[in-house]
Every structure is written in structure tokens, then in C-alpha cells.
């Protein structure tokens, strides 16, 4: 799926330089469920952003689906993103002015899917995450767990090859958090690659592999469980 070689990311603010990623090597195969862990400021989210084509590395190589994308312009990154990657954020990042239905529909609009097909796919996805009855609600009318389920639906509706989740349970209580994790596991069982940043050790156990980071470097990689059967439709 993806391969990072000697990846570096340096942030510059005036005269201050911060090395967020330092010679990172990482390989993720299709269908894996990988958890990235580490203390605050270790570079987890930066790594996720680069993997998700939301940012470019300062140096090094990033091959995604056999394409070298490290120096791709914004336009090409957007094209790759919309076809292949779905995002789930800690703070949900739903657009407050749009309804649940409109939020989930957004990726399909950018993929230029027809109106009829969009309606069918959005409703199917809302049904899948159990939030169809709230389709006309605004995000601020939902609980945290409900909002995260909407975010999951939005991430999945485009049928991406990979889901990137940045602390998806960070703002949820344990019950809702477990629900979200079970959703992710089910997705992974269907063949979707999942890369998840998390602070939670229990939730990291849902993944097959855990990558630990410290100070911008990958410290260790360990297997947490065997892969589930992939039955992707």
C-alpha cells in the first residue's frame, strides 16, 4: 500500500526549526490495521498527515500505491486523496452548516458521482453506521458518539482503499469508543487498510501491528494480533 523511506519533516516558524519526523522508515501493506502510538509531540499526527497526502515531507521518499508522491503538487495529492483515502478525526471535523446527509455526501460530490447514486450510497452508509434517522440533523444536534459515526460514514462513503484515523476515540466515552473501534475492525476484516493514531493502549490492541514513535523517530514495531479474514466485497 505505502512505503516511507528516510522520511523527514521540518517545520519552520521564523527562525525556529522543529524536526517533527526524523528518518522515518515504514511500510504498510494492503489490508493491514496499524496503530501508531507515542507521547504527545512525537510526530504521530504529522506522520499521519503525510501518509494521508495532506502534507508533503521535507525530504525522503513516500511511495503510495506504487507512485512516488513526496513531491506531488496539491492538485495531484487531492486527486489521489479523494479516490483512495478516508479520514476520521479526533474532533470529528464535521461542517456545522451542513446536515448529516450533506456532510456524508461531500466526498461523493468531489468524485462527481451522480445525484441518484450519491443518495443511494449515502443512505446505505448512514444505515450501516446506524445514524440514518438523523440524516437531516445538524452536527451540533448530535452527541459525540453520533458525530463520530457520521465522520466514519463520511470517511467510508467514497469506498477508499485506506482509512486514516487520528485519535478517533479521543473525544468519546468508553462505550462509544468501543463502538467505533468495532466498526474499524469490521472494516478491516472487509479488506480496508487502516492506520490509526492513538494514545489508548486498549484500543491499540484492536490493530494487528503497533508502531511506537518518540521524538520523530520510529522506535519499535510489534505485532499485536493476527490479521482477520479479509472478505471485502
Amino acid at each position, binding site marked *: 500500500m505505502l512505503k516511507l523511506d528516510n522520511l523527514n519533516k521540518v517545520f519552520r516558524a521564523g527562525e525556529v526549526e522543529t524536526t517533527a519526523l526524523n528518518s522515518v522508515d515504514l511500510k504498510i501493506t494492503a489490508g493491514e490495521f496499524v496503530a501508531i502510538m507515542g507521547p504527545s509531540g512525537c510526530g504521530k499526527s504529522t506522520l499521519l498527515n503525510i501518509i*494521508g497526502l495532506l502534507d508533503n515531507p521535507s525530504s525522503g521518499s513516500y511511495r503510495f500505491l506504487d507512485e512516488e508522491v513526496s513531491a506531488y503538487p496539491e492538485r495531484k495529492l487531492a486527486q489521489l*486523496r479523494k479516490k483512495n483515502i478516508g479520514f476520521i478525526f479526533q474532533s470529528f471535523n464535521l*461542517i456545522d452548516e451542513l446536515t448529516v446527509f450533506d456532510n456524508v455526501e461531500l466526498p461523493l460530490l*468531489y468524485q462527481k458521482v451522480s445525484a441518484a447514486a450519491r443518495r443511494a450510497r449515502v443512505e446505505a452508509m448512514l444505515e450501516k453506521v446506524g445514524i440514518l434517522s438523523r440524516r437531516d440533523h445538524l452536527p451540533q444536534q448530535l452527541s459525540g458518539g453520533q458525530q463520530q459515526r457520521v465522520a466514519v460514514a463520511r470517511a467510508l462513503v467514497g469506498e477508499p482503499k485506506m482509512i486514516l484515523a487520528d485519535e478517533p476515540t479521543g473525544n468519546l466515552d468508553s462505550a462509544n469508543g468501543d463502538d467505533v473501534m468495532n466498526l474499524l475492525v469490521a472494516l478491516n476484516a472487509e479488506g480496508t487498510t487502516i492506520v490509526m493514531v492513538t494514545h489508548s493502549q486498549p484500543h491499540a490492541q484492536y490493530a494487528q501491528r503497533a508502531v511506537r514513535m518518540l521524538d520523530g523517530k520510529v522506535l519499535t514495531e510489534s505485532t499485536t494480533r493476527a490479521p482477520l479474514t479479509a472478505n471485502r466485497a
Partner: protein
Amino acid sequence: MFKSYLTIALKHLTARKLYSAINIVGLAVGLACFILIALFVTHEWSYDRYHANADRIYRFSLDYSLAGGGDVHLAAMAAPVAPMLEQDFPEILATARISRCGTADNGATISSDDVTYYDTGQGMADNSVFQIFDFEWLHGDPATALLEPSSVVLTASTAMRYFGTTDAVGRTLDFENGAALLEVTGVIGDLPDNTHLNFNLIMTPVPFFLEQWNQTCFHTYALLADGADVGAIQARASEFFERHLPENVAAFIENASFTVQPVTDIHLRSRRQAEMSPSGSLATVYTFASIAAFILAIACINFMNLATARGAQRAKEVGVRKAVGGSRAQMIAQFLGESILITLIAVLLAVAIVELVTPAFEAFVQKDLSVANLHDPRAIAALAALTVLVGLVAGSYPAFYLSAFKPAQVLRGDITRSTRAAAFRRVLVVLQFSISIALLIGTATVFQQLRYARAIDLGYDKDQVVVMTASALQGFGTQWEALKGEWLSSPDVTSVTASMQVPATPIVGTRLLRVEGVQSELPSPYTMFVEFDFFETYGIELLAGRTFGERFGTDRLAARGDSDSELTGSFVLNELAARQLGLTPEEAVGRAVEFPMDGVSGSIVGVVADTYLESIHSALKPLVYVVPPSQTGTFATIREASIRVTSNNLPDTLTHIDDTWKRFLPDQAITRRFLDQDFQALYESEERQGQLFLYFSALAILIACLGLVGLASFAVEQRTKEIGVRKAMGGTVFDIVRLFVGEFSRLVLVANLIAWPAAYFLMQRWLENFAYRIDLSLAVFVGSALLVLVVAFLTVGTVTARAARANPVRSLRYE
């Protein structure tokens, strides 16, 4: 996708009502000003373009120099020239003459069976005028209407005035009490506002006039063939007159030539002597267009500033859209679309404002702008184009700014305010206030110049003077002394005189003057024909010698010896004429003097003070006053009576004046006015300009302040925590207000650095239109700067004071 964009756009509009209102109202006011001024500018540009052959119609105007010096540039042409042009230039398909002596009084007494008017809109014209120009024919045949002698064509409202109907063909009008009986052969629609042609009644020319080279009131037009080389015609102008000018005329004038002017250029680009209508002003058009552009720019700047200042509120949305696959180009399209939507709402509001204020605006600029035009397809298309253009321009910077948010950054909550964007916003605020300050300086300067013009010592007393105008043909006839005596019989009439023209009208008519003992001739002094008591009635100061007096017996020009063609009498000069001859007033008195070209001679009996008989647009002129012979000829030299009255019993006095007129000149319509009304009219144009400057300055400041309200409100909102902390640390409301006011005020002070040089340059150019003018005053510049500063203080201070008064605990809990 469009539905998503529209939903978001409408939600944002309604969610933040204050900002939306500021944006929409600010843009709407700016657009309304722009549309109103565009209507005015379009109207001014449209003069005479409605004629089907407008691009091939030219006016041939006369230029010459007087023997001895002085150039004359007339709008009209000598009468005999038109057929000679057709003869000499095969590319001229047709010519037409319209005899109108400029905007000076072209009056004649005209009567139908029922009514008599002193009609100032009459003139003569060739029938070919109906082939060259387009008129709306209601009755009659344009092919033949003015072919027969004593035919007349009326405009519709003139026909209604005389006959109560437009169907007046075949009816007759009496011209100048039996001088001619005119048969109505045609009725045309009233001339539109946007033409330089100015008449309401035109008759077949009297053949006698068409042969006279001294008849120079004939505006001469030619229809040229397609593709005619106008330059080639112009190049042969001097040669044309060398060939055709009679010798006796050539003795008086030199360098006779013509200027070929496109008819579409006349209104805005021609300011010759004796134009048929008051000229428009290209400078005014450009000024108004600039003002419109500036005000719209201020409104667009507001939009940019508010949109970018509130950028943080759209950051998350931009990040999400990019994360789910939106490209920057799509973000830009979205924000430009929102901008066009807001502009569309503003345009609709602007159109409503325009329709509301247009009657007042039309009355103000004295033009019929036909606002109904806003509903026709071309206007709607223009409005649509304006909407898109303004939406794109105003929305461009915000669109590029907002779409640049990096998803990785904003989605983790890092919405660092760009210092570069903040600096650009400050530049925009400076620009807004530069324009406002410059407009204020312009306003103050215009009003100062007007005040100067009104307060200047004219050298004569214009108040309490009633003016009565007699017909050009008959004048006062033999009734002048009787009229004067009867008027003076009223105790409330203190003085009576007459002249060829009264103050506050342009002085025309120059003659070469030769003075005993003076080597050089006075090239072109202007001649004023006056009756006795002229200087006394107007209170013009005598500097040396004496004024005219009937008791001297020799002042009025009279035949010398047995010769009818040579006249002798007394001359009075003004001080400038004496000075140009190199003489003091005392040295001038007693010298023999002559108009060598006219066979008039005599001696200088007095020198009077210079007077501003015209507006201060024109420099003082050297004047020679003479008392003409009593009227015996066809045309009246003297036809304006000036009657100085007291302010007691004014209605009775006016009745006495009118009754006296009716008694001695029963066949002439009464035309009475007060002289100070004429004086008022001299500066009407500048008065209007000044008021327009004032209104637009106020609007510019209003719009800029709306922007300040928005920016200040947003700044306060962004720094709520800071305000809370400052208050918790002991800061007072005053300290908080001073902090914010200080930041914005610095921008206003910087704006002066741009505004002052620009305003100085522009107002210096404007003042050059006046021969006598004020000096630009530093006080005006400082005053304008202070006024804008105070307004900015109050605006920002009011907004921040409210936030500063809030409980700091609430502010600190805001986070």
C-alpha cells in the same frame, strides 16, 4: 456541489447578521453610487449619438483673428459658407444651417390667435436639417416642411403652448408683431435631453441673411460620405477661405479657417463662443466617473477586509473539504461564488436605492436620465456583468486567501493568523481612508472657491435690480425715454438704464481701438453699448473724468457731418483697457479715439473701475463703453433695461414696472427677472459639483466606517481573552478603548500621506478653470484629516467600549 455551496453561503449569511449586513449594505451603497453616476456618464456620452448618421455628421465652426490681434473661435459659421462647402468638397453629401445665437437670448415675440409669448427658443434652419438629423415627426412632411418661405416647424410642447394641440399644421403664428406671418408646416417631438440642438421653433431662413458674411450665428452641419477623409477636409480650411472670403470682410479679419467637429463631440469637447446649448464638461464626466470608481473600490475593500478577517471561521471547512478530496481551485470557485451571491443581493438592493433617489438626482444634475432604462435587456445584462465583475474583484483576494489554508494545520486546530494577511488588510484600510480624505479636501476646496466667487467685489451692485428684455428686432423702439420716465415716476424705483447686455452674461463683440498718442492699438477690447445712467444704476466707480450724461449733448454716437456711415460721440474705458494702452486713468481722459474699422470716432470722457461683469471663470476684459445712436435700424443694439428698485412695496413696484411695459410696448411679451438670479446661475455648475462632492464624501466615509465597524468588531471578538486579562490586571475601559482606537487611528494618519498629494494635484487642476481663484489652504487639509480621525475614533471607540465594559470573568471563560 452547487447546492452544497449555496447552502453554506446562505447559512453563513444568516449566521452572522451584523457582518452580512455590513457587507451587503456597504456594497449596495457603493453600487448605487456607481450605477447613478454610470447613468449620468452614459447620458453625457450619448449626446447626439441617436441620429442614424451620427458618425458622419460634422459641424463646421468658424475661426479667425481680428486685424490687430485677438483670436475668435465660434461654434457657428458665417451664413454663406454652407453651399460653398458642398461645392468645394464632393465628399460632403449635404449641409444644413440652424441659426441660433448661442445660449444668449434668441428671443422674439410670437403670437397665435390666443396667446403671445416672448419665445427664446426660435431660430431659422435649412430644410436639409431634417435629412441630416433625426427628429420624431408627428405631423407634416420633413421633405418639404421648410422649403417655402415663412414656414415654421414646432416642437410638440410648443404647438401645445400656442394652439393647445400638436395637430397644428396649417395654423399661423405672428412673428414680431407683424414682421412675418408664419405657417406651421410641421410638428416634431420635443428634442430629447441628450442633444446639443436647442430650439423649439424653426422657420425658413430669410434669404437676405444667408448672403451676409457678418451673420455668424448659423450653426453649419454637413453629412459626409462613408469613408470621407475628415483630415483632408480640415487641411484645406484656410485655403477655402482664401478662395471664398470677400475682400471687404478680409480687411477686418485674418487667418479665417474652420474646424470640423464630429457632432458627437460637441457636447463634451466643444467650448466655443456661442454654443447652441450649454456645454457639458469632460472634466466633470471624468471626475464623476473617478468618484464612482473610488466609492466602489472602498466598498470592495470592505468586503475583502471583512472576509479575510473572518477567515478563521471558514478554516475548518476548507480543511475538511480538502481532506475529502476538494482541490484549491474548487475552494476558490466556491468562495468566488459566495462573493457573487452577496454582490447579487447588493445589486438588487442598489437598484432599489437608485430607483428611490433618481428623481432627486435628476433634479440635481438637471438631466433626464431615464431610469426606466434599468429595466431594459441591455441594462439588465450590464447589471449582470457588473455583479459578476464586482463579485470576482471583491471576492478574489478572500478566495485566494481562504483557499490557501493547509488542511493538516487547520484540522488540528492551528489557525495561526497570517501576519501577511493582516498587513494587507491594514493597507486596504489606509487606501479607503485616503480616498475619503481626498474627497473631503475636494469638497472643502470647491465650497471655498464658491464662497470666494460669491464674496468677490464685483465692482458693481447686483442686488435689487430688475431686468426687462425687449425683442431683438424692435428693442424699445422710440419708447425708451417714455418707459424710463414712467418707471422713474415710482418712488421705489431709484435708477433706470439700458444696455446691450446685463452683467452675468458673456460679453461678446470686439473692435479694434486706436487712441491718440498711443503707438500700439488695443487689439480686441470688448464694446459695451449702454444708455445714460448705466454706471450710476450699477454703482460702477468712476476713476477719472466723467460718465455719460445726456446734458452734454455729444455723448450719444451721432452722424458726423453729412456722412451717415461715420459716427462720433464719447467713449468711456474701463481701467484694464487704459492700462493695456499704457495709460493711467487720468492720462486716458480727453484723448481722441476711434474704431477705425467701423468709422466711429470721438474722445475718451472717463475711465471707470474694472468690474466682473462675467463669472470669475473668465479673466477681466478690456471694455469700451459707448452710447449708440437711437434705434432706427432693423435690429436693436440696446434691449436690456435695468431698473434699480428699493425693497419697499416690492409687489407694487413690480406691478408698476409691468404696467408701464404693457402701456408703452403692448406688442412685446413681458420678460422680467432679477439680476441676482442670473448671477446665481453663473456658479450653478460649481454649486452642484460642490454638493455632489459633499454627498459622495459623506458616503465614502460612511462605507469606510462600516468597514471599520466590522473590522473593529472582529478584532474585539478575536481578542476577547486579551481584553479580559487586561481588565483583570487592572486595565480600565478607557485603557482598552485607547488600545484599539490607537491601532486603527495610526492607519488613518498614514492615509493622509497618500491623500494630501493626490488632493493637492487634483484640486490645483480644478482651480485652473477659474481666472480668479483661491490658494489651496493648509487648514482644509488638516481639517479634513482631523474630521476623518474623529469619525474613526468614534466608530472604533464605540465598538470596543461595549466589549471593554463586559465582565472580565465572562471574557476569560470564553476560552
